[in-house]
């Protein structure tokens, strides 16, 4: 099979690599299904971040394959069937790594955008 990368996979509305982190962060509070995750991200970002389902589900399945999250069918409070994702120990480690990378990045970008005048 050819190894060309699917362009769709890379077209993420968020900053490259941040979606995984945000999903893992959301799952920190407990198991959640795909729709729940997208709603939570929207609500918590103050309706700013709109996660496209076209990115969400591939991301979920990719992370499940990595072993960062596991899935299980369950029932919502409204008694509807849904597939719930839960973060694993490995996923928590990954979240910590992503986070520290993110913080370094934010600090670095901040430094560039607001240069201190000390010399």
């Amino acid at each position, binding site marked *: *099979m*050819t190894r060309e990368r*699917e362009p*769709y*996979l890379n077209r993420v509305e968020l900053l490259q690599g941040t979606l995984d982190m945000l999903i893992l962060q959301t799952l920190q509070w407990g198991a959640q*299904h*795909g*729709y*729940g995750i997208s*709603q939570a991200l929207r609500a918590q970002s103050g309706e700013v971040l709109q996660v*496209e*389902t*076209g990115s969400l*589900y*591939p991301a979920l*399945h*990719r992370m499940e*394959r990595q072993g960062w999250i596991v*899935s299980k069918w369950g029932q*919502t409070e*409204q008694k*509807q*069937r*849904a*597939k719930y994702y839960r973060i694993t120990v490995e996923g928590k480690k990954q979240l910590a790594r992503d986070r520290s990378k993110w913080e370094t990045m934010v600090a670095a970008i901040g430094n560039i955008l607001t240069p201190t005048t000390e010399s």
Partner: protein
Amino acid sequence: MPLWSRIFRPERAKSDLDAEIESHFALAAADKHDRGLAPEAARRAAEREFGNAALVKDVVRRIWGWVWLESLQQDIKYALRQLRRSRGFSAAVIATLAFGIGAATAMFTVVDQVLFTPLPYAQPDRLVTIAEASIHGKPDFDRGAAYLDLRQWQQQNKTFAQLAYYITGSRGNFLEGSGGSVEVHLTNVSPNFFGTLGVRPRLGHGFDEEVEPFPDGKNANTIVLSDAAWQQMYGGDATILGKDVMLNGQAYAVVGVMPKGFAFGGERDWRQVWTTVHLDEEDQGRKNRSRGYRAIGRLKDGVALAAAQADLKTLQAQIVKSYQDPDVREERASVIVRRYADSIVETDLRRALIALLAAAGVLWLIACVNVTNLFLVRATARQREIAVRGALGASRGRIIRQLVAEGLVLSGAASLLGSLLALGAITLFEKQIPSHLRLEVSASANGTILLALVGLTLLSTVFSSLWPSFLAARMPIEPALRQGGQQSGTNRSQHRIRSSLVIAEIAMSLTLLAACGLLLRTIYALRHVPLGFRTDHIMVANLTIPAYRFAHRNMTTELYQPLLERVQHLPGVQAATLMTEVPLGQTFHMVLSLAGEGYGAHRTEDNSIKSNFRAVTPEAQQVFGFTMLRGRYFNQQDTAGSQPVAVVNGAFARLYAPNQQNLSSVLGIHLLSMRKNQPVEVVGVLDDARQNSITQPEPEAEICLSQMTPDSNSYLAVEGRAMDLALRTQRPIASITPELRSLLLQASPEFANATFTNMDQVVADSYGNQTLAAHLLEVFGGTALLLCVTGLYGLLAYVVAQRTREIGLRIALGAQRWQALWLILRQAGVLIIAGVIIGIVLALASGRFVRGFLYGVAEHDVWTLMIVALVLLVSGGLAAYFPARKAAKVNPIEALRAE
């Protein structure tokens, strides 16, 4: 869902993903409904918001790698559809490969069962046999070692975990079961025998290993039964332990029943029984003629064969000093140790089987080459289709996979058919195999064979379809699309490849056919050897003698003479004789060993003459029509009271006669002694009849059965084991059998087990491996010829189709028909002649593989090679003629208008 089920059950994983996305819709719709949207509008809004669900699914599936499996499934489905559409092609490929795979599988099954089936003992590779060898290192595996020698090996070796010994009982042992007396295969063993083999009885404890058989102690009159004997003779009686059974009229207590499948020597379903070795005074000395036991030992862990041999050699150097006779000291100076497994299958047979397996492999290769050619043609025919697929975006890998999938489907079908063919062939040959190979082979599949079958299938695919697929996929797309129709470019290199494949096929077929031809000539030569005796109208009954019934009686006068008398008086019987073994028989072979004697110039290095030995009645000459070179045959005047006489043959006389110029000088010589102080005198020399081996006359000595009495030397060995009754009659065997059987039953009830045959059959059986090998090679060679002829035909037919336009043009421009004919024939001629020349080289090179089978023909026989080459030339010419004639009949107008 666990990973494995995602990978191996893509169907389920797929529906899981569908369900997940469906549940997303439902949740989103419910949410929107809560916010006041009508249910249908909510649903629509949710779907709109989601975007392209199919694309999401596709991306997710790709993440899990299901696409690969799905497209494989697709490939196979597509392959099946393609193959259904071209039935002729599929049938040709499947039939061709099925022959190749079938032949290879059948041969492999036989080889696997005969050579590679592990023995039913614990760690059989640690078991070795030990034989004494002469100072020159020549081992005598038949003679066995004296008890005292063995005892010393047992006690003083440093390399064996256990060492046991045994004597395989001769014929004539009868066990009384619920259904009468039946012959059994008896082996006398040392008490630690089963322990050494590492097999425990399924019932009972077996022999008491603590007790050495001297004196017998607790092991006296105890017996261990094989599962077959227990089941067949005592109906698997679970309470048999401790009960007495009657062996040769004596009571033995059963102390063990061996597990199913256990056997030692002989065939697996024989009724075998074991008692302990019974030692007597004879075993307490070291004389030349001491009773010989065969030794089997288990090496200590980590000890190599060579180390064990060195260990025993050192020991034997000490032991042999106890022998008085210097000749015997030389004869037993050394020791040879070899793996027990290697001692079971004769080297000749091993070579034969491997040569036949190689022949089957060549046939398989020819089949593969043929199929490769078919695939190449097909790939050319499908050039446009493949180009279109490439133009539509299929990658090269994808196209190859598609084509290989087709190959795989075809080889799969072929191996299914092939294994059926193999099964059929084995079942068909099953009855022949034991008589030719003296081995038991059954048409059963096991893991190894299935593995071999799968391997053959995959290899066939790789050979025959992978390569054409690569070629096809490498074709540039654009020219194939631009040029239209059938005439489009076959490129030169492809044509060269196809021609070389046909040449290879012809060469390999010639090799097989040459081997087949040599064997056929061998069989012809064997059938035309003057045997020196008549074989027509002779019926033979093989008898096993229940000697225990005649203990303390004279078998000569009370069993044999009356029996012979009655048989001679049966209507239609011209003459009848008893002999220990009929000429070329394979029932009861006796060897006379004359050590340290002899006069001839051909005395062997260890001064002993080995000769075949028979006891016969005087009527043998009337039955078999032996001719005398010198002196006389036995007659009615040779009785127990007269001078004991012997007859030898020319080969014997040449070894033994004091005067080599005059074979008559052997007459009057004393050979051996009939009784104490009563030597046997040679009174006649037989012409060199092939009594023991068709291929060459062997030394032969005969004594007169009617002169034997219970006090004769070797009386029991000669009279009490087995006897063949041969009678000359014009009546068909079927009509005389019942009368003969009732006569035999009157003589002794055990004769119910007698088997009947005729002399022609005995002679045919003695041809041995050659017959089977020749039959197999006839099949292989014939198939190979057929395959290479069709291969050649296919190639030329294709060439003609390709060049129709060109030929049409040539004819239109004034070329003669014969020139068109010649055009194709010339091309065929180049292929055939090249193939034949390479084939002759191959046949000459592989001659040494068949050398061992040949008789009366050299492995580089010019005539055989010429005839085989001629056969190929003629059949190749025929295969070429039809396409060539088609080329000559090309109608130029039609050929040029087409397109």
